[in-house]
């Protein structure tokens, strides 16, 4: 336990050596999170990569419309010193731009594309970041932003099934049996198969 705790301490020392993080939260002996400035991200990623955090596990964003910010998250992992490092940085929401990290972690290419598609964050430096990946012919604001309402979108675009009969049993007691009979009848009528 002491050994693995010292891994977290090691990361903390490494980060503090370079920058002063706004927030440090130690989640457990295998995970630590830092919140840093936007312009420090590349420096820290490079430092962490040189220190052995060679795997980029996850890249995504969180929308904070209240603060008018996007929070971009990088999760890194080192297989020899098993610590997950979360680096978070807040960027402006109205004009979200953050430099791409594919020079440092080439595997981030598609994460950035996805992030652009779902949040609208631009990643200059990534040659394909503006191309569509998962959605096709999308005609609304990026869907993972908090002000996007999927229910309204779905109601607007897709026809809903309308039910002509009401089978809920919450009404008065006397109609219960009748309704059940009706429901059974309808179920019978829907049945295909050999019985008919």
């Amino acid at each position, binding site marked *: 336990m002491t050994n693995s705790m010292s891994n977290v301490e090691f990361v903390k020392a490494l980060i503090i050596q370079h920058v002063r993080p706004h927030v440090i939260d130690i989640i457990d002996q295998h995970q630590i999170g830092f919140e840093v400035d936007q312009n420090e991200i590349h420096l820290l990623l490079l430092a962490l990569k040189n220190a052995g955090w060679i795997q980029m596990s996850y890249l995504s964003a969180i929308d904070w419309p209240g603060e008018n910010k996007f929070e971009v998250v990088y999760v890194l992992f080192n297989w020899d010193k098993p610590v997950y490092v979360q680096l978070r940085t807040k960027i402006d929401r109205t004009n979200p731009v953050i430099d791409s990290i594919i020079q440092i972690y080439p595997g981030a290419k598609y994460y950035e594309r996805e992030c652009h598609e779902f949040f609208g964050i631009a990643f200059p430096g990534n040659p394909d970041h503006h191309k569509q990946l998962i959605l*096709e012919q999308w005609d609304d604001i990026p869907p993972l932003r908090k002000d996007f309402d999927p229910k309204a979108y779905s109601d607007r675009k*897709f026809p*809903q099934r309308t039910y002509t009969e009401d089978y809920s049993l919450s009404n008065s007691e006397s109609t219960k049996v009748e309704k059940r009979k009706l429901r059974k009848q309808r179920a019978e009528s829907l049945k295909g198969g*050999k019985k008919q």
Partner: protein
Amino acid sequence: MKSTKFSLATKLSKAEVDRKWWEIGDFFRRNSLWMLMYCTGCCAIELPPAMTSAYDMERLGMGPMATPRQADILLVSGYLSLKTLRRLIYTYEQMSEPRYVVALGSCPINGGIYHDSHAVINQLDQYIPVDVYVAGCMPNTESVMNGFVDLMGQIKNKQANGWKKYHENFDWYKANQITSLGEVDVHDEFHE
């Protein structure tokens, strides 16, 4: 006095002859249903048990087919995102007639667990006609098999005529497709 037993039936009209031939065809069609393996969604995970040794679909004369041209059943296995629906419509229109559609799971019926999703359609029979729905999330392999047996019964009773409906109401179906999809045929500009 002619014997009634072996006398030839009176001359059948052309429509009746056609009907007889159609019934003979139906016998073959329902006993040899080939399905198109298009895993549109998660219900496809219950198909391997149905196809392989556990439930052995081949007993019923069914089997997976590689391409839409060869297949009789379009098996819509689960939810349909918009992107899949486009390809599903191409696929459906490629299949040779008579063609049947079996939809597995709750999602093609009314959206199921994804009823409020921005990417998943709510009701499949607005876009293409569906012959058999198998409800459940996910439906058991037994109910999947039962769905196929139901389809066979429907073919026997001449109820499985979704493909005729598609011809008759083609404009209605196309209009619905365009409302939801914008454009049905898109050039795939990904990476280009």
